[in-house]
């Protein structure tokens, strides 16, 4: 087994990831963090879970036909991750940039285990991943996340609600059951991989203050905007 996920990486750049269930507010926090880091003169690259062009087609076909099993769901996401790791994450890290990942391998550990895939198998599957310099886990009570999602787009997505598992025919009920289990898995991951917990029920500004404090311990904040201007001449 490879041990990349448990050993610190040796790239000059920094990798920060945000984790949490849907409606935890992690994407909002990541966007604010990106703004701030850029303003501080850092070169920032953002990458999202399940976004590579290569597997998008297959995921779409699978989702539309409701044809994905827990195993193929897991493997497709790992394929997407491998593709992004090698083309989108490692190159900027080598170039000394800051990479911000919206979800990371921990999402797979939490979701796939909830779907009934062997926990150890998923960990071994992702053992080629680069260990993040900081992993922020936005922990939110299930009712808060449901309220946020319903207020925003009214309709819960099929796989996010765990409808494929057939636990309930009501999307809201299914979401609560499924994401409730996902939350339990995340609780184990906090210990196992040293995720930094941020209580996500609090105000956006308070959370962001904490995020910036934690990140500033990892990156040099003295880099001035003028310096990067010099470079661009």
């Amino acid at each position: 087994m490879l041990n990349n996920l448990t050993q610190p990486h040796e790239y000059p750049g920094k990798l920060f990831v945000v984790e949490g269930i849907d409606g935890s507010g992690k994407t909002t926090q990541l966007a604010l963090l990106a703004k701030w880091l850029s303003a501080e003169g850092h070169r920032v690259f953002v990458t999202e879970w399940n976004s590579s062009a290569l597997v998008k087609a297959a995921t779409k076909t699978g989702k539309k036909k409701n044809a994905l099993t827990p195993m193929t769901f897991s493997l497709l996401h790992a394929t997407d991750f491998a593709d992004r790791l090698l083309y989108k994450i490692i190159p900027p890290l080598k170039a000394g940039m800051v990479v911000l990942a919206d979800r990371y391998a921990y999402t797979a550990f939490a979701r796939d285990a909830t779907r009934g895939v062997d926990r150890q198998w998923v960990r071994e599957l992702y053992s080629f991943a680069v260990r993040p310099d900081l992993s922020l886990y936005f922990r939110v009570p299930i009712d808060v996340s449901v309220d946020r999602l319903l207020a925003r787009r009214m309709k819960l997505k099929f796989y996010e609600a765990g409808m494929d598992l057939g636990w309930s025919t009501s999307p809201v009920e299914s979401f609560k059951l499924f994401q409730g289990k996902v939350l339990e898995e995340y609780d184990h991951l906090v210990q196992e991989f040293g995720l930094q917990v941020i209580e996500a029920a609090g105000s956006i500004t308070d959370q962001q203050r904490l995020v910036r404090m934690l990140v500033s311990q990892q990156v040099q904040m003295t880099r001035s905007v003028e310096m990067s201007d010099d470079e661009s001449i």
Partner: protein
Amino acid sequence: MTNPSDASASEQPGANGQSLAGRYYGRSIPYLPIDGYPGKLFVVEGTDGVGRSTQIQLLREWLEVKGYGVVETGWTRSPLMQPTIEIAKSSNTLNKLTFVLLYATDFADRLEKEIIPALKAGFVVLSDRYIFTALARAGVRGVDRQWLRNLYGFAIAPHIVFYLNIDVKTLSRRVLESRGMDFWESGMDLKTGDDIYDSFRAYQRSLLREYSSMADEFHFRVVDARRSIDRIQDELRRQVAAYLEPAEKPTEPALAR
């Protein structure tokens, strides 16, 4: 053809001396317990152009004439993944890790949707290639061997793995006589040189090395693929017949006499 009842089968032993056939190699799919399924899984492995599909066709005909239900499966034939794999191959953007994972996804899809249901229903499953193809190709490309074995731990150990063994010289001629050498079978993605003939030979030589290094680990029945189609088929039938329960063997129909 040899009388099938003459042959006797020896169960494929696992690492602990017990037969693994019909069970998961490693970490299972927890939501799919498969113990005690009546079907049988026979695999024909071997490199490109060695004659696997011809042998499978003949096996299938023979089995169906004898009254066995047969399901065939191949490599990269799942409806879910085939379009994606074709796109990826033609656009040449695959790195070795995504390559491996795409094939594993395809395999998982076929395992859950074709192979396991067929075994459950008592079919004979004939697989043209199996995980060993993936292990050999990825092994040649330098992917971590232990990681690969963990990845494919959810595969079901076949009742028999026939390995059609051949030398590079015979293989090269056979491939050139039939359909010619193609980009992937020549390992051109490894960029060892522009000459397809040299590349084919070097790549197939490393593949054959990978296969033979797996022969003991996975209990391959090594078959000399340089012999005639009929001789090879005789041997395959003899070994397959020994694996089919005598009680399951259909008797000759009485009306025929």
